[in-house]
């Protein structure tokens, strides 16, 4: 055992135990750690945003280099703060309109290409999948899953008879999907616990590497 003498490590250890104390029950120590985390996160984000984005991309070109074109984004940015002044709060519509218009124009074609066209292509039973039986099997399972799962959300006709079979097959696929997500979630949460324990046993106590 080789206990750390670093003050920062000890601070991290105390805060870790503060958060873990919630497992016993809610308490003021946990609340303190939680609020400290929120405060530090916000402060860290504000300072990084200033030094990485606002200062080099707006303040420097506009006020130090005199590039007057930057007045437009500066003015649009200021309009966001109009929300705090009721008399001129309508000004916020300008940057919102700009962002919505720009983002929609950029995102819609890209989204269509990535999430619809390519995904539909991915379900096609092309000749190449018949080359190997296992590839064919997985492609067929995917194909049936997509058809049945999409059909489950088709509400314009009552699901009975053959349609009921298709929709219930869709439910089975959805349940398998939820189960896989839950399994992965358990794995993720365990990983976070292990990460903290590696820190406590390694960086703090020096029991492990």
């Amino acid at each position, binding site marked *: 055992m080789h206990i750390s003498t670093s003050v920062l490590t000890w601070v991290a250890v105390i805060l870790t135990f503060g958060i873990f104390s919630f*497992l*016993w029950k809610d308490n003021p120590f946990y609340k303190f750690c939680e609020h400290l985390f929120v405060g530090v*996160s916000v402060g*860290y*984000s504000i300072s*990084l*945003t200033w030094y*990485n*984005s606002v200062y*080099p*991309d707006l303040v420097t070109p506009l006020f130090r280099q005199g590039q007057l074109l930057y007045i437009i984004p500066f003015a649009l940015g200021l309009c966001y703060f109009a929300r705090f002044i009721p008399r001129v709060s309508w000004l916020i519509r300008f940057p919102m309109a700009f962002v919505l218009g720009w*983002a929609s124009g*950029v*995102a819609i*074609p*890209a*989204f269509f*290409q*990535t*999430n619809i066209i*390519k*995904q539909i*292509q*991915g379900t096609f039973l092309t000749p190449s999948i018949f080359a190997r039986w296992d590839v064919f099997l997985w492609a067929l399972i*995917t194909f049936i899953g997509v058809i049945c799962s999409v059909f489950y959300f088709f509400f314009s006709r009552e699901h009975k008879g053959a349609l009921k079979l298709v929709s219930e097959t869709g439910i089975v696929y959805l349940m398998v*999907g939820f189960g*896989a*997500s839950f399994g*992965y*979630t*358990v*794995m*993720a949460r*365990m*990983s*976070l*616990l*292990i*990460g*903290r*324990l*590696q820190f406590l*046993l390694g960086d703090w106590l020096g*029991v*492990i*590497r």
Partner: protein
Amino acid sequence: MKFFEFLLRIDRRIIYAVMAALVILPLVRPLGLGVTTGPRARVLFEALDSLPEGKAVLISVDFDPSSMPELYPMLTALMRHAFAKNLKVILCGLWLPGSGLADQAVTTVPPEFGKKYGEDVVYLGWKAGVDAVILGMGENIKNVYPIDYYGHPLDSLPMMDEVERLRDIPLAVSISAGTPGYADWLLYGQSRYGLRVGAGITAVSAADAYPYLQSGQLTGLLAGMKGAAEYEVMVQKAGYSQTYMPAVAAMDSQSLAHVVILVLVVVGNVAFFATRKTKRA
């Protein structure tokens, strides 16, 4: 029946204690259960392995410290692999709180391989505006990042002479804990500039990424700590690095914890249905 009722009344804190003990034990005394590598991680490994020497790989650090146990080992393993293959590494990030993590990787990993900042590795840092950043990098990286994370002008870094835009980068890997992340690189980097994208993601979001893998949009996938461990094992087996592998070291604990959860789920359900029958009677 009393036994089942007893099981259902166990204090959750006892379960926490048992779980903690079973996670700590293999960390202190490894069981040596081993890590098998899957096809999804192998695809990414082979994609990076087959790149010609001197080419640049983009790694996007799209996570924050809360996902560090799962994703940071992926970042270091990918960097080690790239440096062992004499590839250049460009790091950037779409997550603001991840800035410091990438910086930590840049200061620790390249010296292991004698790599120099500016010649073999560059860290661009974080910029606001996810879609605008990726689209801008597709046109000209220096327009989006005139200076790197440390304040060096990109023109002064020799490595960036050969990399002008995304089309000059044969492979990008987004190590992401959610949004923004690999999906944005696919949306803007791949659909518009044909960027080849691999992903390392948290286990929570793994199920969402499989459709992109099946459709061939993603070049390989590392899912959670297991994915990180798989990559670490492949890097080690190929003889690229022999350093400590934190994800591999955690796998015994992970396996044991999963066994406990499986047992708890089964026992909990059996006890629930057994006592329900009695209550009805």
